[in-house]
Each structure stands twice: as C-alpha cells, then as structure tokens.
C-alpha cells in the first residue's frame, strides 16, 4: 500500500526581549542558576504578572509578516499543572483567543513552492529547568529561564514529508530572525519544534491518528525523528496494529522515538482566563506603528531580486534566506552595476563555500562586500580571469591585503594581471608549439583533445595570466585550424 505522511509543527520561538514576559528579570542565556529569577519568576506569595509590551510587539511583527489576523483583543489563560520547574503551578499562556490567528508561510520543496497555512501564534512564558546531574539523587531547579517570553507558532497539518517539515522549520527560523523577534539559537533552545505526525493510505482524506514528537531542537533531529516515526507508524499499521495518540520523545543516539505519555494519561490543564491580567487589547495605531517598522520581508525581497536583478528564482530564494546574506549581495551588486548575476554566483558560490568550510556567519566574512565587488570588477574589465580571481579571493580571505582595494593590491603584488598583449601571447604560443611537436602532431592527425592540452600548456606557461580567449584564438590561427 502507498502511504501519505501528514505533518503539522508547533514551534516555540523565544522572543528577543531583554526582560521576561511578566517580570523585569533579564533573559540572557547562561547566567549562574537562579540569578535571573525575580520574586515574580520564583512565584513568591503576593507577586503579580505585568505584561512586557515588547513581547506583544514581537508577536504583532510575526503576525504581520505571515499575513495573519492580529486579534484586537486576546486573552491570557492559566494552564494548570504541577512540575518543580513551573513555579506558580500554572503556565500563563493563551488558549481560546490567541494574539495571532491564521497566516501562511511559503516554503520551497522539491516539487516547487508550497504554501503552508498557520493556525495561530500565541504568547506564553517558558518554564525553568530541572537539573538531574550533580545533585546525588536530588533534582536541582534553575528558574533563570522561567518567564522567558515564547511565541508558540502552530501550523496546519500541511506538510507531506520530513523534508517539507524541515523546509517549513527552516523558512520559519529564517523569518523570525529576519524580522528580529528571535535570535534563532537552536543550541540554546531559542527555537524548538514539536512535530505532529500521522500517516494515511494515499488518497484517503481523513487524518490518521497522530503522535506528537516533543522538543526537537535541530533540523537534523526533526528530519530523523519524523522519518523514524513515519516508518514506525506504517510498520505498525501494516502489521495489523493501531497508532495510539500519544506524546513521544526522540532519542538522537538511538535514532528512534519512544512513548512519553499516552492520551489517556494526558493531564487536564484546567485552562481559565488569568484574572491577574486584563485582556490584551491591541489598537490599530499600535499595529500601524509595528507595520511601519517592519523590514522588507523575504518573499517580497525575493520577488524584487528576480525582477530588479534578473536572478533565477533559486538564486533569489537562497540569497534571501537571511537578511545579512541579502544585504551582502545587494551591497556587492550595487558596487558593480550590471553584473548582479556574477555577484550572486560569487556570493552563493565561492563566498558561501568558504564560510561553510569554517562554519562562519556572513556577518563575520573576512572578505567584505566592497572587497568582493572590487575583485569582480577586475574580472569584468578583463584584468584577471575567473580562475585567477579565485586565487585573489583566497588571498583576501587569508588577509594578505586589507582595505577596499584589496583585490588590486594582491593582483599588483603577485603580478596576476592578465596578459592581453597579443604579441606576448603569440610568443608563448610559439614556444608551446615548438616544445610539444608530438601533441601538435596528434592535433593535426585529428585529435581535438590535443588542442585543449596545448591551451593548458600555454596557460601554464603564462602562470595562468594569459587571457584564455586570446590564447585560444591565437593557437587556432597558428595551427591553421
């Protein structure tokens, strides 16, 4: 039987506010345990939550960026359960009326672009952390993270493969960073996903029973966990079993998911509106203010890159995968008008490869956009060949020259200027013909490949500096080809 996979994601994005969602304590990562927990975060008797408007503003930003409805009135609710790192015995979240409703996200899949519908996005507070190591049979509680603002973004079950789920997660990850509401740091838990996975026979319209895989904090784990879970569910059904609705955890070491709790064990959270917080009202003026502060969004920028620079869709999408990369490209392209495609090729090719190799971010690229544009200008005016340009690029990367004119400095220092003097090239070609009679003979005997061999030798003799086009034509002329 052919099976169809159905996936929906719930993503927790930690909002980049300096202080917590309901207290003035700092949200910075990595402080000594419980040093960033105020009376409110510890839930001392008598304390009350006060909403951080910065968190709301970030939620509005997100809603606008995905074309969602910003609810003019939303309600904070208490989700009641006991856990040692949940100080109040309830989490303040939004239940019936979230701040953001609807919206869509466009993702790139193997079959082309796809629109994923969003159900909602709501504000809530994070819990603290239970530390089970180093306490000899006891549990340590660190409440630094308690009260950290989160935006929980819930998608519709619109993804049909692990790859699509990853594409969605990556696009969402890029977007929240793009609009500056989340630092996206997955190691620190700033962006984590829960995946709702089910399978059904191809063609079936009813959804299968789903399992929720909790707390996937890398794209790789997300993909592996879904792939495992899909296989597990299909095998289970094919063996005559039934999928039980439950929450599962992914174990990356064993490459498998295991049951955490079944639906029957699911707690009754006894949600009710938090009487300590009046309903959150957002007026048009606030929304307008946030809207005017929004940067150009990736989708719009991608479309502009295609029309303004004539870039293919793939280049435009990749260049707009982050604001910094897009900015780098635009700065480069602006410095060398008319050569946007070449700029895109270099940014996505040489530069990205070099960055990936050392796992560096575009912000820390050792070659600036001005330096890259300076280099490309020398290709454009024929001073150097594309091949030599790569050497020059490596030299700038290695810090052999600094400043805006680093490319020129290196070309001059290393004498890499392309030889375009036909007299000089003719001389080299003559020498190559004279020194390689056997190859010349092969060529004359009809072996086309021999010609390329002679070009290569001429280029080598010029230490790569000869204009390849000229070498080609002069050699042809000399051999009477």
């Amino acid at each position: 039987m052919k099976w169809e996979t159905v996936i929906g994601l719930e993503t927790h994005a930690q909002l980049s506010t300096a202080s917590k969602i309901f207290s003035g304590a700092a949200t910075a990562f990595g402080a000594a345990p419980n040093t960033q927990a105020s009376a409110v975060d510890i839930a001392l008797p008598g304390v009350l939550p006060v909403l951080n408007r910065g968190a709301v503003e970030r939620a509005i930003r997100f809603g606008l960026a995905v074309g969602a409805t910003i609810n003019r009135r939303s309600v904070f609710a208490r989700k009641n359960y006991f856990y040692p790192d949940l100080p109040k015995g309830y989490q303040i979240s939004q239940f019936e009326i979230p701040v953001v409703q609807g919206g869509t996200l466009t993702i790139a899949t193997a079959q082309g672009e796809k629109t994923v519908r969003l159900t909602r996005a709501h504000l809530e507070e994070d819990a603290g952390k239970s530390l089970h190591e180093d306490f000899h049979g006891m549990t340590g509680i660190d409440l630094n993270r308690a009260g950290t603002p989160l935006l929980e973004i819930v998608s519709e079950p619109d993804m049909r493969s692990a790859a699509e789920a990853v594409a969605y997660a990556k696009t969402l990850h890029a977007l929240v960073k793009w609009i500056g509401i989340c630092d996206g740091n997955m190691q620190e838990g700033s962006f984590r996903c829960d995946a709702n996975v089910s399978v059904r026979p191809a063609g079936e319209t009813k959804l299968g029973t789903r399992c929720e895989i909790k707390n996937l904090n890398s794209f790789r784990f997300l993909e592996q966990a879904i792939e495992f879970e899909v296989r597990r569910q299909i095998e289970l059904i094919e063996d005559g079993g039934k999928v039980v609705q439950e929450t599962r955890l992914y174990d990356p070491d064993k490459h498998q998911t295991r049951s955490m709790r079944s639906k029957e064990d699911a707690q009754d959270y006894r949600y009710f509106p938090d009487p300590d917080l009046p309903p959150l009202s957002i007026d048009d003026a606030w929304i307008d203010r946030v809207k005017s502060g929004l940067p150009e969004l990736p989708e719009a920028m991608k479309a502009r890159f295609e029309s303004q620079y004539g870039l293919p869709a793939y280049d435009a999408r990749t260049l707009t995968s982050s604001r910094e990369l897009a900015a780098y490209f635009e700065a480069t392209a602006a410095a060398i008008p008319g050569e946007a495609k070449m700029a895109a090729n270099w940014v996505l090719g040489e530069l990205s490869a070099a960055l990936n190799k050392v796992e560096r971010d575009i912000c820390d690229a050792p070659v600036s956009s001005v330096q890259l544009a300076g280099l490309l200008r020398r290709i454009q005016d024929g001073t150097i060949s594309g091949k030599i340009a790569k050497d020059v690029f490596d030299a700038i990367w290695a810090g052999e020259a600094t400043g805006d004119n680093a490319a020129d400095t290196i070309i001059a220092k290393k004498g890499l200027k392309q030889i375009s003097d036909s007299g000089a090239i003719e001389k080299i070609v003559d020498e190559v013909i004279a020194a390689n009679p056997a190859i010349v003979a092969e060529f004359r005997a009809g072996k086309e490949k021999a010609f390329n061999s002679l070009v290569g030798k001429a280029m080598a003799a010029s230490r790569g500096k000869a204009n390849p086009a000229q070498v080609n034509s002069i050699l042809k002329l000399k051999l009477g080809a």
Partner: protein
Amino acid sequence: MIGAPIAELGAALRAKRLSSVELTQRLLDRIARLNPVLNAFISVDPDRALADAKAADAAIAAGAAGPLTGIPVAHKDILATAAMRTTCGSRMLANYTSPYDAHVVEGLARAGTVLVGKTNMDEFAMGSSSETSHFGPVKNPWNLKYVPGGSSGGSAAAVAARLVPAGTGTDTGGSIRQPAALSGICGLKPTYGICSRYGLVAFASSLDQAGPFAQTAEDIALLLNAMAGHDARDSTSLDRPTEDYTRVLRRDGGARPLAGVTIGLPREYFGAGIDPDVARAIDAALAEFRALGARTVEITLPNARLSVPVYYVIAPAEASSNLSRFDGVRYGHRAAKYDDLTDMYGKSRAEGFGAEVKRRILVGTYVLSHGYYDAYYLKAQQVRHLIADDFRHAYRTCDVIVGPTAPTAAFPIGAKTDDPVQMYLNDIFTVAANLVGAPALSIPCGFDRNGLPIGLQIQGDYFAEAKMLDVAHRFQQATDWHGKRPALAEDID
C-alpha cells in the same frame, strides 16, 4: 485617650499631647495582656514598633507629620511584610518571611504609621469566622465564646478591643465587612483596583481587595487615602487621579446633611432569614438616615440571590490555581519524608493546608475540569455579569444601597464549623460587591439580644467611596454606635 479614633490620636500626637512612643508602648502592653485571650495577633514585634514610633515622633518634631504619622497599625497576615513573617494563617507558610512589602503596607508605612504586628485570620482568607487559622481561632472581644467574623477576624478584633486604632484586611467575599459587623467596628472593601493587590497573597484574584478597619468612617477615609493609588506592579490596579476621601466629610452639612441622598433598599435584603434583632437595628438606622435628610426607595436586585453559589464557584476556581504555588519546592512547608516527587507534593500539601482550604481547592479543581468548565465556571461568570447589571440598573434610582452586612450577629465558636454551607450563607449580603467589583462599607448600628454588635452595609457604585463614607460619617455624627466598646476595652482612658 489611647482608645480614641485615629483622627483624635493624630491631633494629640501633632499637638504633642501624646508621643507615638508612649501610645505604641501602651498599646503593646495591652496586646501583651489581651492577645493571649483574643488570639488576634500571629506576630508582634515590639522593638520594631517602637523604632517606627520613634521615627514618627521625630517627624512630628520636625513638623513633617501627616494625619497618620505615629498611628499604630496591624496588618492582616496575608499582606506581605519584610519586617515579619507572612503566614496567611497557614501551617504552609508558618515560617515564611517575604522579602518585600505589599503595596498597601508600603502606603501606610509611607504615611508614617507604626507597624505593631500581623493579625490572625482564616487560613488563606477562606472562612467567615477566623476559626480555620493554623494559629487557633480568634475570639470576639464582645464575648470570648463567639467568633469575631472572618476571614480578617484578627484585625477586626484588635481594632474592636482597642489594641490598635487601625487595621488592614482583605475582602474576597465579605472578609472585611462581615468581621467589622460582628466585631462592632467599621470596615471598607474599596472598588476593585483602588488598592493594589501587589503583596496580597492571592485567594481569588478577581475578587480580592485590601481595605481598612477603624472605629469611624472618618478614620477609614484617612486610611484609604494612604492605601489607595495606582501601582504598575498590579495589572488590575486602576490608573486614576488620587482622591482625598476626607474632603467631603469636612463640608458643613447643616441639620439635614443627607438631603438629596437617595438610599436604595433591596427588597431581597429584607426578607426571611434575617435575625429580628438585626432587622430592628437596620430599621432604626434607616429612620436615622431619613431624619438626616436622606430619601429611601425600594429597589430590586433579582439576581443577587445567586451571589453565594456564583461566588462559591469562582472563588474556589481561582483559589485552586492560586494555591498551586505552595508545593513545598521553593519555600513553605515541605513534608519531612516522602518517596518521590508526587509523594512530596501530596504530603507537603496535605500537611500544610487545613480542611477548609483543601475543600475549596477540590471544589475549584472540579469546576475547572474538562467537561465541567462550561456548566460551572463559565456559567458562574455569566451570572456574575447579570448581577453587575442589577446593580447598574439600581444605581439609576439611588445613590447608595443599604442593608444588613450579615443576617445575624456573631455566632458561637464552633457553631458552624461542621456545616460549610451554613458558614457560606453568612456571606449572603457581602459577596455581590466582590463579584461586581464595587465598594462596600460596614458600620456598627446596634446590638442584638446577646449584646453582640450588628453591622449595617452601605454599598455604592464604582468609585463611590467618598459618598459612602460621607453617608456613614453623617450617621456617626448623629449616633454613637461606633463609640461603644466591649467590656475589655472600657477600662482604658
């Protein structure tokens, strides 16, 4: 003199006829003598009180005294104080000291009051008799075999026994007004949001409101001036211009100071179930109001009869969530022995909470449960709106609403502890104000056949505190019920 109302004491202090240290010391002596009998205080700190008094005397000497400078005050033990522990009358918090002061505690401290101690109360403010305290029941100063009302019974008893001229309480369903009535003093529950709840250990967040106890309406106004005010730390605190609640009291009202005031008498408050002595005392008071120029009209609050059931859904629901933080993890009582996490929660809470608190947590958990929420909690919230509509409608035809604060005077200790519903029915006239969020005041208006005080409730529309206090003040200028003292306070000069 030390048993006098705040206004008189303040005048004597500012005229240096009395020092705050002397006043405080003499009251501390009274507390030392009478508290073992009354059990009104959970904590008293004489050294600290005298230090406050000394500072107050210095302020008076420097000519920087306000109307409350040097006035001793007792706070209900549900209001957080950094100076002494805040137990909420519970074993759960028997050894808990807050690192900060509640907003109303700060306000009264800023006004120069002297903090003498923290008062006993029903555990976590759950009760109408001050019998559910882990620290034992509070006794009514008028008759030690009787309850003083609750939950703020310790403050009410302390003020009634003239142990302090001023006290604070919190009122979730009548917990200031009912003990004020049963103890023969004045107590005000302000409009919801007038006094910040910051530092008030939450029982039912949408109903809780702190307020003052004193001998007179005038004193209540003085205390409210210091307790009210916007506080950014409480999102339900109202941001409105500060008001001087004593201003209207100073106007010259002439012979008929209540001329132009219409008093609404809810048909539902004068029916069966009211003790005849209470009914008689209220009738006499109404005659006095009319003599002072007020007009009375009959009104109706058709949904008010639903107040108690609605209250006993909403209050426990919020309480069940509010009290979840008492889990033995970070502070408060933790069982000495337990097997695992669940066992630690279970034992710590079983040992830390008393029966009434557990009962309300269970009720609250039930009404919020999946499948019951709509039928109970949601329905109760809907009825709450209907009750608010009743009052809105009533205030089109009257300025204040008057009736008994409680259906009876004080009852004997232990009389209702086995019958929670009978106990809950004590709140029948008081809970509506909390559900609606409107202000309500109780003042003494007579005594029953056992010589126990009877309270009269004056309710008003939102922010009508000044008007209500004026009505009470004019009544007190013409009568002396507020001046009556229990026998154990008659000896003081």
